[in-house]
């Protein structure tokens, strides 16, 4: 019948066989969903944020469900760079799927150091830099919303790694174009948009915030229209690829991001709702494109009417 569309895309030197990955923090370190999802079916796997040293993260409660979304303030607990290499990297020897490691730090030196450590790991295909995590008081928020600090971090990481470098932008800025441009100018190979949006909920009976960390990040279908807008805006000013995310639940959602200007997409919160989402998205995109004789994702990218 219809020919299979060409789903391949490139992020710097990283070739993905399809444009669909998972959002950092929503898919663990890889093994957690391996029983339920055929990992090698994905364009890439993006793991939870990792810092140089092991980190304990926030107290509980760490998540809270809201209308059409959820709040999270996990606080980036993790085994640290060496811990990740020892504990989780061997797992990926049994898979071919490209591995994107999300990194973060409390200081510029942290970022630089963790990038350096991972630069030597052949199994890691790309680094995604989280400058936008709204949960860690020690840095995240600041790096992502102050363009000078932002440049400092991107520069510091760029210098330490030859791997494709993805900068994950903070959504809570007046003008995303400023940060998208800065990332491109500092030599990033791609940007990802968006992280969860700073938000909060309160239990009116106890007067306590619903998250131990007080504030957290809003994710899920609720934020999709915000994410689409940010991707569309950024796509107007940069040439490097954009990985779009925020509330992707269906092939149609993913296609909306591509049409808005993203080269790739990530499925996040939807994996909690239904772990089969990410594969369903890949298959659905393929089918949708084939039915319309769209020969490649590249052809579809940014085709929203001006």
């Amino acid at each position, binding site marked *: 019948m219809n020919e299979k569309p060409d789903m391949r895309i490139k992020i710097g030197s990283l070739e993905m066989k399809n444009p669909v990955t998972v959002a950092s923090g929503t898919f*663990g370190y890889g093994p957690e969903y391996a029983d339920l999802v055929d990992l090698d079916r994905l364009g890439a796997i993006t793991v939870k944020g990792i810092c140089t040293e092991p980190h304990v993260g926030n*107290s*509980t409660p760490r998540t809270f*469900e809201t209308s059409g979304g*959820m709040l999270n303030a996990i606080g980036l*607990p993790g085994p640290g760079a060496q811990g990740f290499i020892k504990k989780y990297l061997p797992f990926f020897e049994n898979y071919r799927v490209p591995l994107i490691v999300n990194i973060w730090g409390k200081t510029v030196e942290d970022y630089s150091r963790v990038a350096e450590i991972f630069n030597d790991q052949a199994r890691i295909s790309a680094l995604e830099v989280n400058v936008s995590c709204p949960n860690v008081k020690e840095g995240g928020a600041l790096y992502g919303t102050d363009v000078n600090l932002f440049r400092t971090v991107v520069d510091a990481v760029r210098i330490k790694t030859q791997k494709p470098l993805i900068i994950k932008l903070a959504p809570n800025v007046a003008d995303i174009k400023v940060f998208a441009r800065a990332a491109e100018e500092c030599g990033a190979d791609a940007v990802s948009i968006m992280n969860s949006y700073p938000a909060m909920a309160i239990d009116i009976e106890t007067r306590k915030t619903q998250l131990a960390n007080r504030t957290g990040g809003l994710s899920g279908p609720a934020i999709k229209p915000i994410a689409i807008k940010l991707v569309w805006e950024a796509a107007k000013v940069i040439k490097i690829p954009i990985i779009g995310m925020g509330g992707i639940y269906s092939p149609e959602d993913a296609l909306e991001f591509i049409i808005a200007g993203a080269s790739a997409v990530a499925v996040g919160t*939807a994996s*909690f*709702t239904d*772990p089969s989402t990410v594969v369903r998205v890949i298959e659905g995109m393929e089918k949708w494109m084939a039915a319309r004789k769209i020969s490649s994702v590249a052809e579809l990218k940014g085709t929203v009417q001006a």
Partner: protein
Amino acid sequence: MTQETTTVIEHRLFQGDYRLLKLSAPAVGPLVQPGQFVHLRVPRLADAVLRRPFSVFKADAAGLSILYKSVGKGTAALTTVTEGEEINLIGPLGTGFPMIGKNTKTPVLVAGGYGNAALYLQAAKLPVKGIAFFGGRSAIDILCVDEFKTLGWDVRVTTDDGSLGQKGFVTAALDLWLAEQKNLQALELFACGPNAMLKAVGDRAIQNSLTAWLSMDRNMACGVGACLTCVIKRKTAAGWEWARCCKDGPVFEAREILWDE
């Protein structure tokens, strides 16, 4: 662990506020071990992104059942599902109850609320039957007494209002009984219920150097160990680390748990 679209075979009021939901789950059903749970996508809850976790009450090749109470919007929506409807689930999840130790002569179950249901498979599986302490607010809250008796367990009931069994807390009844026991080392505890009860059971076990397996109830998002929502503090040589109730638990040995304050 697998994901399966199941069909509602039976759905009815079970007792008091509790409902029984029985699902045809040929893939998941046969795999369930005592103390494990399933993660349900509640139908008609379109604005909710999270699944809801429920302990498996009974399971076999034909299907599995849960006992649940309507406490919020997810469980309220669940009450409206009808026979023949489809429910997607992931399961079996978590690390459940272990077999009793080889020195254990008398297993002791302690349960409140849906804990009675969560302990049923373990009660059925254990090769030795012992004593079961069930607590609740009122007679209506004490589930499955006859079922446990049929399995051969000595069931002791306490209710806050004295409407069934002994009046008072389940832990008070447990205390009295423990005080009478000569050979504490022949005991092994298995508990599921409200947090305060679990902590009280754990404290008693530790004081008496007993092994106590506690099934912890924590809010969950992914249910499979990926999101780090459901963590509790587990003691380590150096201090403590986070352990995930959905993967490393829900069942933990009392001595492992570092209770917050």
